[in-house]
């Protein structure tokens, strides 16, 4: 597909610039660790459960290690050293003892045995992740996959896992290929992952390993009933991003929202914390065969979708670079973008087509995530359903990979059962009625759509040049993305970051990532 006639040398230049802009941040990520990265390691090593206050044992254990020796060496060696010293073989028991204050942690001179033990333990966890990945592949082979692209992606958001489940199953029966369970407001700022099945979220349901398990198993049942594998999505974001990635791998989630900057911009999480957590979580996603979804769509809710169109492109290129660097393949890159131009703007629909096609042609092998209108949705639900229809059409005409279904009540409430049904009807009509209309969609040479796409790409290259000169962290501090200004030394969770000491050891990371 070449409908825009983009200049390959400009495209190549944009990619090179993104790499140059991103490289220092990768360097930063490689030289730091965070409490959540270390907790994620412990989760893979088999630590589970929580204390009577609901604080997970991984938190208690990491806190204990940190209090004794800091985080700079990683927790693996101190923990497995202590485990051996205490003569235990269950790390969770160690965590309980540590929480009671009866264990001391240190970095042994001879770290070989502890490293080996740690690697054994985490390899067992990674093997479970691998098995889940194979299980997914088998289920898809056996049951069948989504019948077409784009995949139809629906959210549930009742706050109660036991209301979410039947709604998700109903949505799948009604045609959804992917179910996302939205998280409760506030969870992303918790520096621990809640435990167990939950019923009390606000505008979303807590992401817990048990909730993951319950929903995945309900959808497995529905998948069998429908004869097609229904995918499940959650969020590897917030202060526990790495742990979410591990839990997703362990419970066979299929896609995870995972952006390199979302937490910084929209949750005011510290930039360094985010970049470190992000890299680790993507390494896990790579291994788990999980598709990530990035969050460029969000920029267009705070910035203007026309003025800031090129910031989406820049961010997609950065997300692509970070993802590749962490080991993700192109098919795992659900790069985000959105239909957020003010519908009153002349030629708004044509401009949406230009932007959507630009993303499509820049990332031909990525399953782009196409987000519906939200910002310009109003309480006029009749108009809302219409806008969603044109959003769906733009998705079909430009070959988007993952269609996040828009709801007519976007400006009113988290989706009702009937909203989802109306929205799916809308999608079905547009996908069925327009069919292969993209064949007849040929942007006129020199016409509006091509010019607009070229223009946006040009602006993106310019912005990347500036970022390369000035550093990405400064660009973020200046409000380049989503007009949110986030200096590198501010934001939540910075105290959970530690520079790696010489000899930092993380049994989950590949050899080249060990100091």
């Amino acid at each position, binding site marked *: 597909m070449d409908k825009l006639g983009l200049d390959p040398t400009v495209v190549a230049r944009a990619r090179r610039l993104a790499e140059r802009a991103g490289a220092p941040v990768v360097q930063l990520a490689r030289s730091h660790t965070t409490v959540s990265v270390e907790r994620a390691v412990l989760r893979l090593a088999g630590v589970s459960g929580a204390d009577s206050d609901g604080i997970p044992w991984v938190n208690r254990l990491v806190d204990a290690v940190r209090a004794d020796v800091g985080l700079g060496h990683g927790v693996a060696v101190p923990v497995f050293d202590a485990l051996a010293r205490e003569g235990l073989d269950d790390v969770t028991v160690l965590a309980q003892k540590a929480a009671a204050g009866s264990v001391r942690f240190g970095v042994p001179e001879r770290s070989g045995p502890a490293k080996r033990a740690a690697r054994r333990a985490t390899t067992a966890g990674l093997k479970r992740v691998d098995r889940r990945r194979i299980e997914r592949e088998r289920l898809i082979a056996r049951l069948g996959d989504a019948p077409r692209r784009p995949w139809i992606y629906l959210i549930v*958001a*009742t706050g*109660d896992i036991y*209301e979410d489940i039947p*709604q998700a199953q109903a949505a799948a029966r009604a045609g959804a290929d992917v179910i996302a369970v939205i998280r409760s407001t506030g969870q992303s700022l918790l520096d621990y992952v809640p435990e167990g099945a939950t019923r009390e979220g606000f505008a979303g349901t807590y992401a817990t390993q048990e909730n993951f398990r319950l929903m995945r198993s309900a959808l497995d049942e529905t998948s069998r009933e429908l004869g097609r594998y229904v995918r499940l999505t959650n969020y590897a974001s917030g202060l526990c991003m790495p742990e979410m990635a591990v839990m997703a791998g362990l419970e066979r989630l299929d896609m995870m929202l995972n952006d390199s900057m979302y937490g910084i911009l929209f949750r005011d999480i510290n930039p360094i914390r985010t970049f470190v957590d992000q890299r680790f979580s993507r390494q896990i996603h790579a291994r788990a065969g999980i598709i990530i979804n990035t969050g460029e769509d969000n920029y267009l809710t705070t910035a203007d979708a026309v003025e800031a169109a090129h910031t989406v492109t820049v961010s997609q290129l950065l997300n692509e670079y970070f993802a590749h660097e962490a080991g993700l393949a192109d098919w795992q890159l659900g790069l985000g973008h959105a239909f957020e131009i003010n519908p009153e703007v002349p030629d708004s629909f044509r401009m949406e087509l230009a932007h959507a096609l630009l993303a499509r042609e820049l990332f031909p092998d990525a399953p782009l995530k196409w987000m519906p209108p939200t910002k310009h949705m*109003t*309480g*006029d*639900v009749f108009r809302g359903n219409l806008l969603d229809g044109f959003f769906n059409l733009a998705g079909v005409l430009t070959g988007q990979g993952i269609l996040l279904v828009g709801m007519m*009540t976007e*400006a*009113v*409430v*988290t*989706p*009702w*059962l009937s909203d989802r049904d109306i929205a799916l009807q809308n999608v079905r009509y547009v996908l069925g009625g327009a069919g292969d209309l993209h064949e007849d969609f040929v942007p006129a040479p020199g016409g509006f759509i091509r010019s607009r796409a070229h223009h946006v790409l040009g602006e993106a290259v310019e912005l990347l040049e500036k970022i390369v000169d000035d550093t990405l962290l400064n660009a973020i501090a200046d409000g380049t993305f989503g007009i949110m200004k986030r200096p590198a030394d501010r934001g939540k969770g910075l105290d959970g970051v530690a520079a790696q000491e010489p000899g930092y050891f993380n049994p989950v990371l590949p050899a080249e990532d060990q100091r």
Partner: protein
Amino acid sequence: MSVVRPYGDTTGDGMVQVSFTLPLAHDKRAEGAALQLAGNMGLDPAMLVHARPMGEGYTFFVVYGRVTHLVDTGKVQVVERDYPLLGAKEINAVIKRRLRRRLSVVGACIGTDAHTVGIDAILNVKGIAGEKGLEYYRELAVTNMGAQVSVPELVETARAQKADAVLVSQVVTQRDAHLHNTRAMSAAFREALPAGRRPLLIVGGPRFDELMAAELGVDRIFGRGTTPRDVASYLVHALLGDRK
């Protein structure tokens, strides 16, 4: 379950959506008026989510909210199908056995209403929803008078065809045209024929309230989504009783 509430996204949340226009220019007071109306309709709390001025002096509103009303399914009034749904074969067989002649049906769209698609769906062989129409039934003699039939013509034809049943369609409902026409029709039959010789009177159309049969002086009302089999089965039931 016997008492239920509307469902938004949680059992028992009672959520509904309402829209309407008030003949008031758009301002805070008009929004308050919209909320007053929503309150009267039982929305509490009511969220006014959209207000749009239209021309001068009119405003359109969309309101969401929780209704306080409960729905008692035990007290629902509905015209349930109180007869068995039969197949074409059975229907023909019952008529043949019990009536010993073809059952005569006269159909028409009366008044100035020219919407024949509905009555044709019931009467013509072509039918609807995969079911053949009454003309397809060997033991039914169907006279389809078409549209814009006046009540005197209809009574006349019913008499001439010795109609066992008269089927009338009404689609236009503005200013209750369907109700006026139906009342006029049933009155004319009452006047023209003594009780014993009057055909079964059936009306149908998408906007009738099926509970109004008695009030309109007809034997039965059929609404949205009626199929020919529904009607044929009812005819057999009402005219020949259920016993086979």
